């Protein structure tokens, strides 16, 4: 299995993620990758409404957000979260990757987009990029994944 340098926060703590997808299966897949990157899953949600509540409760560093979900779709959830928390970092993760969807998500405040099936190396680079936009909040990779807890 490919090894990744851990993505850590400025305070050397693991990056905290909120994973939002209506498929338990897809969430597990993303969680596996987050662990490969040395991150910590702070919360999970299966729809947009729960995602908003979870964001308010746990204030994650990054949200991985599906688009097509019951109750409230991902793009609407992005809009509501960013309206309340303008510095929220949200990466859209969807199998539907056409221009209109991507543009709509970015216009509502998402930072990036990754298409399913997610390749770990692609997600890693996107997370690095998204985390690097605020050097005061999150540090650069400093150790191999798994080493930071020792």
């Amino acid at each position, binding site marked *: 299995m490919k090894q990744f340098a851990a993505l850590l926060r400025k305070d050397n703590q693991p990056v905290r993620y909120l994973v939002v997808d209506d498929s338990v*299966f897809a969430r597990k897949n993303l969680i596996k990758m987050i662990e490969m990157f040395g991150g910590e899953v702070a919360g999970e949600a299966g729809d947009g409404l729960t995602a908003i509540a979870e964001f308010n409760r746990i204030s994650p560093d990054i949200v991985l957000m599906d688009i097509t979900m019951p109750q409230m779709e991902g793009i609407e959830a992005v809009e509501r979260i960013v309206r309340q928390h303008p510095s929220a970092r949200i990466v859209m993760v969807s199998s*539907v990757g*056409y221009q209109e969807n991507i543009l709509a998500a970015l216009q509502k405040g998402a930072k990036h987009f990754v*298409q399913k099936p997610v390749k770990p190396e692609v997600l890693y680079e996107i997370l690095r990029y998204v985390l690097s936009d605020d050097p005061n909040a999150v540090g650069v990779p400093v150790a191999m994944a798994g080493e930071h807890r020792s």
Partner: protein
Amino acid sequence: MRMELIQPFINAADAVFAESLQAPTKIVDLEMDQEAYRRKGVAALIAIKGDIEGRVILDLSPEVAVKVASQLAGVEVEASEQVVRETVCEMANMVIGNSVTLLNDQGFHFKVFPPEIHMDETGLAGSADTEALVICIETPCGEIYLNIAMHYLHRRRQERNAVPALD
């Protein structure tokens, strides 16, 4: 059969399975079908409506679904009806999502409906006036079937075929 509508689904399925299962896949059988579709295992049916219309069925046995789930999870997954449903739905969503992206980039607009899972003994509805293409894809986890029936919306076809009157 409009191959330009079918090809994106074949390409997407190939790419999704190869990437998800981290191994090459191969189309081992391909046939045309106009009868009600007889499932081989658990099937997810996704309907498409818009500039082009039809439906796609992704079909795999519960044993293959559990192997796929284990491969994706990176650990042995215990077989259960929920695991099988989740796996079939997620694979279908990924294949359809990627296909829709390819077709949308070609200028087609349509709505994709959520997958309906079929696990009981009844056959699935036939594809009305459209022939279906049934593809068997060999993967490291076992065979996965894709049944694709797509056609242009009738109104669009008439518009496209309309020839300007000549003086």
